């Protein structure tokens, strides 16, 4: 197995529930190299976030293996493990210490990127969800990883924030590997170069977005509304 690759083999994850065992992932296998951006579509509860958590190392698989030949981020867009009673600055300091980074330089970056102004010195519990997202993303960008895990990042923030995030991720870090899970198909189409659909615990991979999307639409039971085809033709 070569380095600089993430190799996932026969990954299975079972959660015990009160109604018996719930098989969430049933034998997932794929490889991901630097520069590859794998976009995963799936319905709610299909196991997208579970897969991301397993790869991030936060949770152990029931069986199977994950070989990480590169450094892997925590799932972006998630709160970055904020302590809500603490200020934004305290949280930046904490993450910097955990990853052994220069605190002052990181603070400067977060101040410029998150645009929180004086709120950076207030407890995170006083932030709006948009402000939290800005802080979370800025903190995610101060630690450099080879592979970024991105879980529904498009769900938060305004257009300006999205543009800045996209620039940081897909332009400045275009050489990195990424795994992006979302149910926002357009986001995945625009930013990935490999695709997969997660359904019934299995991952089907595609080299072409339209094929992946066609299968995904069928899975979620999307039917063209009456008059859809006429509409398509008339606008064309």
């Amino acid at each position: 197995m070569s380095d600089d690759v993430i190799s996932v083999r026969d990954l299975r994850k079972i959660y015990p529930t009160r109604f018996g065992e719930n098989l969430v992932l049933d034998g997932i296998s794929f490889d991901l190299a630097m520069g590859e951006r794998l976009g995963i579509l799936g319905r709610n509860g299909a196991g997208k976030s579970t897969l991301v958590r397993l790869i991030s190392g936060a949770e152990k698989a029931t069986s199977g293996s994950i070989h990480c030949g590169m450094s892997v981020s925590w799932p972006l867009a998630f709160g970055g493990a904020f302590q809500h009673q603490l200020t934004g600055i305290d949280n930046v300091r904490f993450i910097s210490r955990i990853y052994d980074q220069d605190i002052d330089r990181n603070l400067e970056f977060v101040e410029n990127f998150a645009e929180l102004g004086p709120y950076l010195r207030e407890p995170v519990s006083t932030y709006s969800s948009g402000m939290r997202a800005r802080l979370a993303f800025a903190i995610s960008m101060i630690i450099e990883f080879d592979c970024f895990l991105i879980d529904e990042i498009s769900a938060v923030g305004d257009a300006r924030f999205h543009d800045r995030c996209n620039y940081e991720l897909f332009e400045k870090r275009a050489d990195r590997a990424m795994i992006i899970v979302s149910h926002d198909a357009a986001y995945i189409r625009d930013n990935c170069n490999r695709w997969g659909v997660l359904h019934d615990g299995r991952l089907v991979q595609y080299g072409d977005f339209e094929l992946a999307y066609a299968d995904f639409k069928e899975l979620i039971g999307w039917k063209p509304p009456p008059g859809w085809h006429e509409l398509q033709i008339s606008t064309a």
Partner: protein
Amino acid sequence: MASTPAVSASFSDSLRIQRRVIGALLRREMLTRFGRHNIGFLWLFVEPMIFTIGVTILWTATKSVHGSDLPIVAFALTGYSSVLLWRNMPGRCIGALQANLALMYHRNIKVFDIYAARLLLEFGGATISFSVLAVLFIAIEWMEPPADILQVFGGWLLIAWFGCALAMGLGALSYLSDLVDKLWHPFSYLLFPLSGAAFLVAALPLFAQEIVLWIPIVHGVEFVREGFFGPRARAVYDLGYLIPFNLVLTVISLIAVRYVSRRVVPE
């Protein structure tokens, strides 16, 4: 913005990372618990000090019957400080993982580190409280200096060791079952009068001595008392019981922590 290497680290590297992580957790814990308001992190040892002073006053006022000619102030200080040391540790570790689940997303932070940071903080608080009060009471001549300070220190460490091992085990089990949290409160409350804090073993009838000497913490408290008062304490203890007990408890607790680490589900 250095890149984070993915290669597995050597033992010394791992040790360095762990020290850094526990240090960062410690600061975070202090800020979250005590904040920057009024006296801030001084509460770490001011709170146990208030407890100990309160108990000292109470026991002095009621002329607590402890079955010896030892001064009550010194008796209360050694006894109650020991209780605070071992009893607060499980209290801080039960539910600690649930409160910090989000941290599990950071690869370098392990379940063990979360407990270690809290235990260090608890140990620091109880130790500072005990030392400051001891120095204070000695300075105002309520108490004489300890007969053998090394023995006091050694006994203190043995009690802390017991507390840490118990805390990690109960902390890990509390992730698996809510019962641990529910049962710990009555259990710790009942264990307090039996822990040797409020009596001398030698003052008990023989059959009672045999029973309380099954409780490992009693040996630790007696050992500390002998360090403080010398032969006057008429201490009864067996380190040959306490140390193996601690060792076995530590192994069991570490196994429990490992078991939980493999099953933890971040939010």
